[in-house]
């Protein structure tokens, strides 16, 4: 018999925790990175076909929208790397304590912005 009783509310009412917010961010950022990697590969292929293509992309990346995208991608990669490290530590069996998980979560979040700035400065000055 089909149970026609209503489903109790879930996502609609459950309070976000630091850990759950970071988890869903990790998932979304992972999907963004997946597509970003494809775009970067396409860009690399374009370069093979000549200088004109390279300069076209270069002009786009120097617009404010282009810069926004580059900086955003710096952040998505930074966040994903740091949170993935957190997952690595979990897989090794450490850091499950609620307090520790909260602290590592905050470090990941703040660290991702620090890493973004570092990436940007490095990219600007050395490459």
């Amino acid at each position: 018999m089909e149970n026609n009783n209503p489903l109790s509310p879930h996502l609609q009412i459950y309070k976000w925790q630091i850990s759950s917010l970071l988890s869903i961010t990790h998932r979304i950022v992972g999907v963004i990175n997946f597509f970003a990697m494809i775009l970067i590969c396409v860009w690399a292929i374009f370069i093979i076909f000549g200088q004109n293509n390279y300069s076209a992309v270069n002009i786009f990346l120097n617009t404010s929208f282009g810069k926004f995208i580059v900086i955003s991608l710096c952040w998505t990669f930074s966040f994903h790397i740091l949170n993935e490290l957190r997952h690595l530590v979990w897989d090794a069996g450490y850091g499950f304590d609620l307090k520790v998980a909260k602290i590592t979560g905050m470090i990941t979040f703040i660290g991702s912005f620090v890493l973004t700035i570092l990436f940007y400065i490095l990219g600007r000055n050395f490459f």
Partner: protein
Amino acid sequence: MAQFSLPQNSKIEVGNYFKDKTNSKNLRKINVYRWDPSTGKNPRIDTFEVDMDNCGPKVLDILFKIKNEIDPSLTFRRSCAHGVCGSCAMNIDGVNGLACIKSHSDINGDLNIYPLPHLKVVKDLIGDLTTLYKQYESIQPWLKVDQTGQEKTELKQSQKDREKLDGYYECILCACCSTSCPSYWWNGDKYLGPAVLLQAYRWINDSRDGDKKERLKKVADELKLYRCHTIMNCTNSCPKGLNPAKAIGSIKKMLATS
């Protein structure tokens, strides 16, 4: 693909408003999820004005006050009222917990009370936990030994081995953790969920049990175990302060190293 919104028959409507009749100065608004199977209507949120000057300290005291003095049709499960039986598990102010040990003074503003998330509602605050109990049965939560029963020898356990069960044997199966887990919301029919996996770990980790390898093999499944993405809502909600996320992590580690 998981369905993130509520189905049509589960959409919540605005319910009745029960105004205070005691002329108390210290009132608090309590919003409670209601659903009556006999009406055929959608669930609703009833709001009760409760006189807090004459009310006990816990959320369960509020529910009893409403049931005794305002609306006797309010339905909820409870038994021991001391955080041992796990019957009064519900969603209080957005986080799962036991109504009997949750102080209402810890919560600011209006108090929102819902049943445990993503369950079929039986009535008002009672959710249907049949699936969870079936999954619990599937991990065979009893001691499995090579003895035939004729030996009549005691199964001894050293203090050290016994200590390995600390933090796991205390679980009262209130289902706060499992119903707080988004993975369990979307894959509850296949993923075992934190409560059952913590129990599975408890038996895998018992030095007296003779079926460790078989138990590990049974649980090592893409859907049963690895749907855990360490979201940690489970550990955040456990009213007994246990750590299901750690138990699941330990099983994964055992499987990776064995």
